[in-house]
């Protein structure tokens, strides 16, 4: 494919030098075009960070929010918590395989004994979240109060966090969205998951939509509260009953605990 054998020597020298010049100018131009916007954006990003107090402003580091799921009170087929979450956060009420599901009901059967149970599954809000470790841009982050969130402004949609999550807790927004809730910003091409109703908590709310719906329906299978406060209902219950963390072998120190599961 090269022409070396066909080209007279003198011409080759002249052509080589002009070509070298052209390549030099082209490379410098390309580098300028590629680097300049990046430098500009770094300035913008730094200015923005200076103006706002950062994404964790307002979260109380003394608090660790969590959930206790009592599977002995969770009825198979009941989806009150799921429906409440979908309504609260503007999610698809009739999910397809590509829809976001921040909370889902799983039907469980112990293989050895045949014992069945049912439980809601959602982001476990780990103290050492693998999704936060792997996120290249830092869009996946843990707030000071233990809530694990995705910053929708810096998520590039690489989906590495979904690969890393042991609980399949995260969803990717596969389609353009309409009719979003003002308190719950979402966007096509970003990854998202249960926020522990952070918009409610930050507005002074005392519980999540799922826990509220479960209690209101009289099941009482979900308790929300501060794991760090010894006097909170969730801490008292956790002291009294046996509970487990899912995939406890991974030592992620989950904020969601399950009662009545032998896992």
């Amino acid at each position, binding site marked *: *494919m*090269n*022409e*070396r*054998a*066909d080209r007279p020597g003198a011409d080759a020298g002249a052509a080589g030098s002009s070509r070298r010049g052209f390549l030099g100018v082209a490379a410098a131009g390309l580098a300028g075009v590629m680097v300049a*916007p*990046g430098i500009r*954006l*770094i300035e913008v*990003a730094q200015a923005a960070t200076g103006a706002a107090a950062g994404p964790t402003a307002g979260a109380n580091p003394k608090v660790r929010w969590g959930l206790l799921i009592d599977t002995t009170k969770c009825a198979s087929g009941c989806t009150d918590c799921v429906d409440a979450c979908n309504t609260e956060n503007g999610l698809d009420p009739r*999910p397809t*395989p*590509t829809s*976001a*599901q921040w909370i*889902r*009901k*799983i*039907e*469980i*059967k*112990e*293989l050895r004994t045949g014992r069945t149970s049912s439980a809601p*599954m959602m982001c476990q809000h780990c103290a050492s979240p*693998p999704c*936060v*470790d*792997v*996120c*290249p*841009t*830092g869009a996946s982050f843990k707030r000071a109060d233990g809530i694990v969130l995705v910053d929708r402004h*810096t*998520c*590039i*949609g*690489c*989906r*590495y966090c*979904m*690969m*890393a999550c*042991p*609980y*399949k807790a*995260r969803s*990717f927004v*596969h*389609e*353009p969205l309409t009719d979003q809730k003002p308190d719950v910003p979402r966007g*096509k*091409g*970003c*990854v998202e998951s249960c926020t522990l109703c952070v918009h409610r908590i930050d507005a002074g709310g005392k519980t999540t939509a799922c826990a509220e719906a479960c209690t209101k329906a009289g099941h009482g299978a979900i308790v929300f509260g501060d794991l760090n406060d010894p006097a909170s209902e969730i801490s008292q219950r956790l002291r009294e009953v046996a509970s487990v963390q*899912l*995939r406890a072998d*991974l030592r992620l120190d989950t904020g969601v605990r399950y009662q009545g599961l*032998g*896992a």
Partner: protein
Amino acid sequence: MTALARAPREARDFWLLVLAGALVTAVGLGAAHYMDVHGHVVTGMTNQVVWGLPHVFAIFMIVAASGVLNVASVGSVFGQTVYKRRAPLSGLLCLALLAGGLMVLMLDLGRPDRIIVAATHYNFKSVFAWNVFLYSGMVAIVALYLWTMFERRMNRWSRPAGIAALVWRFVLTTGTGSIFGFLVARQAYQSALLAPLFIVLSFGWGLAVFLVVQATMYAWNRQALPADIQRRMARLLGVFVAAALYLVAVYHLTNLYYARQVDFAAFLLLGRGDGAGIFPWLFWGGYVLLGSVLPLVLVFRPQPGRRDLLAAAALVVLGAFAWLFVFIIGGQAFPLEILPGHAVSSSFGDGAIERYVPRLPEWLLGLGGLGAAFLLTTVGVRVLDFMPADDFPAAGQPAEGAAP
């Protein structure tokens, strides 16, 4: 035909190749735009299989990019003259494959428009973030390396640059393997073996790509690769393929040995479980038989011919795609074990094997990346002098010792 008479036809053929490469790349870019407008719902990917066919193409190209540089390393670092003369082509292919692979990877993002965010926000605990530096560093080092080879005044720096490139490519492929190796939650991955496995796989895949391109360039220039060089490169490919097969075997044997991994190994290798169908076929038929055993038979024949070597190299590339599909897609299709010892079901596919079928935009995007790599190689080879300069007598005459 004289050299002068050949020139216009050669120029026309060159532009035809450029046009073909540009067209495939443009179709790939079009597919990416279609995915960007409509979202990933137009692909076969779901919340279970989150990395689909584009990742198979991208990771092949990135791993092969690192491996193809091996040819240069054998030359510059270990002083093998035959390989030294092939170092510039090896560097060019490295850059072209890296560009093609990164193009696919970036355009498959949910928000490809935010790619600048990936360059301005870093989480240094993320293997992906390390890779951003490893890839851009690789481009810079290989570009420098090429410069030391082409610029006569810089020739004495060629060896240090070659050593830097060698070290960097080892780190880069360690990074690529670790993207999977550090995923503690997934049964398919979570193994420290993946980093060395990817390095050894890169040797074979990179050399295979190099051999295919080299064969094309020789055919274009109506030259034949001297038989002794051919034999040496064939043997080297054989050693790489055998070493990779060994490490792949060890990786799967580990899975078969651990009780908690047996179900996954049976799913991947034996097709146990609903919807596992394609993975054992791709593994045993695609990777082991066509992509490894057959190339080994071809290259270790007493006198491997030109066609044997080309066929072996093409089969290694085919096997690479088969293995990556099994590794990446198969690894995700198998359900996560959130509750060991329990059967689970849900509306979100818990406990169920995912049936992923890649859709047209994914194929087109992947092929677009290959098209971009092809385009860069074609233009690079034309603009600069990348033809291995060792064994050329006057144009049009067969080289000494050339295979018939």
